[in-house]
């Protein structure tokens, strides 16, 4: 691997070419050689020299010798040598010294690579410096793409066929795959490996295809099957199992950054995104053609309107994170929307093309021949895609729903109208009597900044505020910042304060996970106004108990004492209330109430007067009508609703798409119509739609164009992904980057042959799996061989099957399988290994105890963003904030801690112990140990292992021994 990487870098840096970006075109300079005395033009004469001969090393990324020659500002950087260019003094300028020969025929110091500058070029540079070394500030020399259209991955499939293999090597060739691999091994003088033993093979197959260890019965059966074709039959059986879709569906969900929360600051959970996860698993199990699968991802709504199983594919578009906080700053709002679409562009281009088109958001791609406009071609395709859930139902379901709903809805509408008529009659009388009725309001309205009630001095130990209505209506939850109770004497004291020893309580409060007391009644007598009691009910009851009985005569309370809001915009404040006192907390005496206060606003006034004016008959009528209304509403709710799924919404964009200069949405560039990418134009015909083409057409056209069989990236990238998950590494080691920033293929001909096979099998994946699984290459042993280890340490050329650690999900699922706890129920809402909490923003608290409902396969875990869930996170399960085309396999003490100490593992170790005890009731410890080895390692224990294990079990019992097996390297390594 290292070797590949280094040679790759040498290639990247060694043969790079740079060019001057768009400068020549705009300068309009006339090119002629500088004659003595002529003014040298920087843009046309100097810039090309620097670009071609200096920038390879002296760019901002590399800055060899701390020097970047990208812009004049770079020369002024603090650590840059001071005398690189000394205006008007060529002899003191380092630049001139370095490129000039000190003696005739001697090679100048620079450029280090490539040929020296010609005498003419040096003369031009000298003349330029002499004339003052003018370099316009805005003129930045930019590195050109390192790859051009001749880049390997942009070529058509080569149509390669398996090479003929020398007779001596034929024993290692079972199919076309092997021919390519064996040929490479021979060329590189690498060894190859014999077939692995059957136990190793079935364990490998089971983990690779299902992400689970084989059951001992399966192993026994396979070992006993000595008929020809035993392996092929096993492969077929494993491919036919639904466990296959679960395992490989998880891989795909990684690749396309599928997550079940919104991400960003609020990170609200998505409880209706699982439809897409089930769709992926089902599509794989049914071996849906890959091109069809991807077309559904991009335009399922157009391919199968009202076919939920097709439309759901578009959840891919909105499966990423987005910022839903909202922003009143118009420029910021534009940027946020652009970021939301960027996520879709990045996900699509990396998954389906293996191109990092996102890098072209601000400028042309630095490594690959992707112009900036290509990025905006994608953007125009997705310009109408909106995040959100919507109904996902078939035409029949919609009809059924409408049939059941319509009569109820109609009746309800009638009842509502009748109610309205009756109310209108009352309202008219209210209007007529208003002048007279208003006389009852002889006191000012309540004030959120501070409302006072005075009453005759009274002895009290407890004071109570009952709230039955708020400034925002009856059904709102009141908020209070302070509640004061004052004594009558001239130097009146507030005896409600906590610091005085008084205690405040409430019948209800809003809950916060972080601080359970955040919104508690303690906030109303803390003497400060920054924190609040917030009721969790409509209305509420607050009580303050003094340390001893007090004579009191005045109460002041508020919810915005610091006047943060205008009075009318304050949070719900008590409008209908009663204040009572008590000496024992049992007998209460009302001392004040909202009686006589002017209602807080027009709407509250009308509500109040309505109640006073309505007559008994009307009241009865309204009561009956209301009952009827509630009954109808109940029936309507009971109609089985249509499922809502997170599949995205589509809206025609208000205007065309424009290139954003520098990626800045406020710097509008040329209009970009929905069209195919220029980078693939040379390979097959593209498309170009009207700038205002219908939204769905854009995605449909993109989908057709991307999945065209003449697009070599589409097939290559996918077969490489399959290879990657079979061997732990792709033929191209960077599965989502087939550009110059990524790796080049170890077996280019094999890659193209497999891509051709995928197309030949009409884009079905299972035939490719069969090719790979039935090859000798896949089935060879993983044992080390010195020549192999020394020359190809990571077995990139496949002289052995590369051993590797299992992924987080496979480790967790394997534990559940061997302990007999695994629940293989498929589909539906996921389970959670965290506690979800929402108080404006979401928080995910990892759980210590898992209940039975979580013992399902990890692919059904509700996979949210920015959560850390012990085992899964510690073993490198990626956050779906970004696409994860490959997993890392780190080693950390946190892994050891979660795998040996988390209560889940302890509990599962006990479950395994129980299973062993059950299998061997009253049986010998040796039998139990042997079964455990078969379950965990798919092998028999050796004699000394058995002895040590039996000793451990005898001293400390089976669970401790089981915990050790779960933590063993052998359990979590595949070979």
């Amino acid at each position, binding site marked *: *691997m*290292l070797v590949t*990487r280094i040679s790759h*870098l040498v290639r990247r840096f060694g043969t790079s070419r740079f060019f001057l970006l768009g400068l020549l075109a705009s300068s309009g300079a006339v090119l002629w050689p500088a004659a003595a005395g002529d003014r040298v033009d920087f843009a046309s004469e100097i810039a090309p020299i620097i670009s071609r001969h200096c920038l390879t090393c002296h760019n901002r990324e590399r800055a060899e010798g701390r020097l970047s020659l990208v812009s004049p500002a770079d020369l002024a950087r*603090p*650590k840059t040598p001071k005398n690189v260019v000394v205006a008007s003094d060529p002899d003191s300028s380092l630049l001139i010294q370095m490129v000039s020969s000190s003696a005739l025929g001697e090679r100048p110091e620079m450029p280090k690579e490539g040929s020296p500058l010609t005498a003419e070029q040096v003369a031009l540079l000298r003349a330029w410096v002499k004339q003052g070394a003018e370099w316009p500030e805005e003129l930045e020399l930019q590195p050109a793409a390192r790859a051009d259209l001749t880049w390997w991955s942009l070529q058509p499939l080569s149509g390669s066929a398996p090479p003929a293999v020398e007779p001596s090597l034929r024993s290692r060739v079972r199919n076309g795959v092997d021919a390519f691999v064996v040929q490479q091994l021979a060329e590189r003088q690498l060894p190859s490996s014999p077939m692995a033993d059957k136990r190793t093979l079935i364990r490998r197959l089971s983990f690779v295809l299902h992400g689970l260890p084989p059951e001992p019965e399966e192993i026994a059966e396979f070992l006993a099957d000595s008929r020809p074709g035993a392996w092929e039959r096993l492969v077929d059986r494993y491919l036919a199992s639904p466990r296959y879709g679960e395992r490989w569906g998880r891989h795909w969900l990684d690749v396309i950054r599928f997550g079940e929360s919104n*991400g*960003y*600051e609020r990170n609200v959970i998505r409880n209706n995104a699982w439809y897409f996860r089930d769709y992926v698993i089902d599509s794989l199990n049914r071996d849906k053609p890959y091109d069809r699968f991807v077309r559904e991802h991009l335009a399922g709504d157009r391919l199968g309107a009202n076919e939920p199983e097709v439309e759901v594919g578009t959840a891919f578009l909105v499966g990423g994170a987005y910022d839903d*906080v909202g922003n009143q*700053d118009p420029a*910021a709002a534009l*940027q946020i929307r652009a*970021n939301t679409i960027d996520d879709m562009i990045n996900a699509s281009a*990396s998954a389906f093309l293996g191109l990092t088109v996102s890098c072209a958001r601000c400028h042309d791609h630095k490594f690959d021949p992707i112009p900036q406009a290509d990025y905006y071609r994608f953007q125009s395709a997705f310009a109408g895609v909106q995040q959100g859930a919507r109904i996902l139902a078939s035409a029949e379901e919609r009809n059924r729903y409408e049939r059941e709903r319509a009569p109820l809805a109609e009746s309800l509408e009638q009842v509502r109208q009748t109610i309205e008529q009756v109310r209108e009659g009352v309202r008219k009388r209210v209007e007529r009597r208003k002048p007279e009725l208003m006389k009852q309001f002889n006191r000012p309205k309540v004030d959120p900044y501070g409302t006072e009630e005075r009453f005759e001095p009274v002895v009290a130990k407890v004071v109570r505020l009952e709230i039955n209505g708020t400034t925002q209506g009856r059904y709102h939850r009141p908020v209070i910042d302070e509640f004061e109770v004052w004594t009558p004497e001239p130097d009146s004291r507030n005896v409600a304060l906590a610091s005085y020893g008084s205690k405040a309580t409430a019948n209800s409060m809003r809950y*916060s996970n*972080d*601080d359970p007391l*955040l*919104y508690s009644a303690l906030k109303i007598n803390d003497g*400060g*106004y*920054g*924190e609040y009691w*917030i009721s969790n009910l409509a209305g509420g009851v607050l009580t303050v108990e003094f340390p001893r009985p007090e004579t009191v005569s005045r109460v002041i309370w508020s919810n915005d004492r*610091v*006047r*943060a*809001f205008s009075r009318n915009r304050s949070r719900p404040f008590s409008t209908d209330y009663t204040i009572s006192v008590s000496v024992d907390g049992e007998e209460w005496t009302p001392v004040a109430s909202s009686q006589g206060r002017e209602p807080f606003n027009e709407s509250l006034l009308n509500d109040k007067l309505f109640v006073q004016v309505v007559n008994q008959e009307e009241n009865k009528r309204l009561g009956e009508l209301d009952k009827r209304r509630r009954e109808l509403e109940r029936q309507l709710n009971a109609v089985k609703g249509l499922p809502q799924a997170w599949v995205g919404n589509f809206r025609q964009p208000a205007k065309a798409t424009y290139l954003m200069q520098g990626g800045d949405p406020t710097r509008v560039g040329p209009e970009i119509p929905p069209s195919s990418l220029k980078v693939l134009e040379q390979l097959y015909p593209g498309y170009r739609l009207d700038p205002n083409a219908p939204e769905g057409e854009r995605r449909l056209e993109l989908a057709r164009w991307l999945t065209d069989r003449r697009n070599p990236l589409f097939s290559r990238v996918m077969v490489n992904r399959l290879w990657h998950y079979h061997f732990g*590494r792709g033929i191209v*080691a960077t599965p989502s*980057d087939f550009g110059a*920033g990524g*790796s080049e293929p170890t077996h280019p001909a094999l890659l193209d042959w497999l891509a051709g096979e995928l197309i030949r099998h009409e884009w079905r994946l299972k035939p490719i799996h069969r090719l790979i699984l039935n090859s000798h290459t896949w089935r060879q042993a993983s044992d*080390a061989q010195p020549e192999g280890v020394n020359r190809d*340490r*990571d077995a990139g050329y496949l002289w052995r099957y590369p*051993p590797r650690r299992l992924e987080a999900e496979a480790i967790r699922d394997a534990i559940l399988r061997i302990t007999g706890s695994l629940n293989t129920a498929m589909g539906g809402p996921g389970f959670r290994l965290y506690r979800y909490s929402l108080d404006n*923003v979401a*928080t995910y608290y990892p759980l210590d105890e898992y209940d039975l409902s979580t013992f399902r396969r990890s692919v059904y875990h509700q996979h949210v963003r*920015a*959560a*850390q869930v*012990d085992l899964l996170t*510690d073993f490198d399960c990626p956050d779906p*904030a*970004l696409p994860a085309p490959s*997993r890392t*396999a780190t*080693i950390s*003490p*946190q892994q050891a801690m979660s795998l*040996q*100490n988390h209560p889940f593992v302890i509990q599962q170790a006990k479950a395994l112990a129980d299973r062993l005890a059950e299998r061997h009731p009253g049986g010998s410890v040796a039998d139990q140990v042997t079964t455990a080895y078969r379950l965990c390692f798919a092998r028999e224990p050796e004699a000394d292992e058995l002895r*040590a294990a039996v000793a451990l079990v005898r001293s400390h019992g089976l669970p*401790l021994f089981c*915990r*050790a097996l779960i933590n063993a*390297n*052998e359990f979590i390594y595949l070979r």
Partner: protein
Amino acid sequence: MNSSIFGNELIARRDFLGSVSQGLAGVALASLVAPSIGSAKTIVRHHPAKAKRVLQIFCPGAVSQVDTWDYKPALERHHGQPLPEEGAFLSFQGKNGNLMKSPWEFRAYGQTGKRLSSMLPHLGAHVDDMAFVHSLTSKTNTHGPGCVFMNTGFSADGFPANGAWVSYALGSANENLPAYVVIPDIRGEPPSGKANWTSGFLPAEHQGVALNAQKTIRNLQSPEEYSPQAESDYRRFLAQLNQRHAADSPEITELKARIAAYELAGRMQISAPEATDFAAESVGTKKLYGVDDPNPLKAAYAKNCILARRLLERGVRFITLYSGSRASGVDGLLNWDAHKKLKADYERHIPILDQPSAALITDLKSRGLLDDTLVIWTSEFGRMPTHQEGTTGRDHNPDAFTLWMLGAGVKGGTSYGATDEFGRRAAEHPTTVYDFYATVLDLLGIDHERLTFYHNGIERRLTDVHGQSITEVIA
């Protein structure tokens, strides 16, 4: 994988990197940056380091610069008048009103006489050691992306945090403790939560390990049902199992590394509780920090400050210590997001921060730790010099905010960059988060352009493709 974790294990880091992390991960670092990796502790240093470790104090919610560190006398003179040229402009929550002076006076502190809010008497005492950057700008005006941007250099989630990068480059100086520790506030996580300390696409071992004086490391302790004897026999048995398995495949170095990781976990079980046990702290120290303060939030933060010092002493490489948490049902309640009532909010938040943080600096100094510890104080962006329409608070301002640095390699008593007359925008030397991290890495001996990691087609950096070290603040 840090070579430091293995101590003297016979594992060549280069080989290990080459095979363990999908080939590419880390190889860029190993082969390009430090071709001669071999020594155990120092992994990547491009030039001599001035700082060995970093303490970041983070006040989430966007601290108002004009009420704390950035003295703007013009605000008093023009209080109640429209902001010239901008009028009632729109920002994050909507319309802005007129200019609003700070509720508190500013007064001169220290020898330099730098003016800070009178609300900051304790931190003000350290002003001569601080280097302020007054001209910071952010790319976003939203808290979650803002915090994540300040911590990872990207406003989208999923990129490695500052501490993860430093852990990746330098590893831990104490193999019994994590290299990167995050100390969340007792009130909860900051905006965007764990995205602020993720390892992103760096190997998972570089993720921030969250603990505070109130909550220890997850899964640290062995289950209670097993006796010490059972636990010790379990470990021996597991080690035998693994050694036997590793002996069959000596070329798979990860197998030995996992054995070492289990040993390290065992040692952490002893070191971590020791680090969080304050029994040995003197009464004087506790008083200095304010751990017995009647305000439980201040007392809790004070304990977290002591914890930070203890962890720094024990070689933790990067600590982020939070003062404040996230958005809640009420703006500005749990953090510095003073939209509606700045005075009341900051009268709660500043006293929590001031004394304990100042005590932490004093304590680090007296123990000589400031010689090689870099202290940085940050928030995600600033606030407007105007009040928010209809309120006595200020809206978000990504165009100007302040941070300060102190300790190892920092030129104390300096102020770099400046905002305009009112503190609305960075006016002199506008500075980016990239410049800031270029500086931090510079002090750690790292060239920010050469600390890279390949991910999805790009050699990623903490500073994206920008940044220039602010040499003016370096001693």
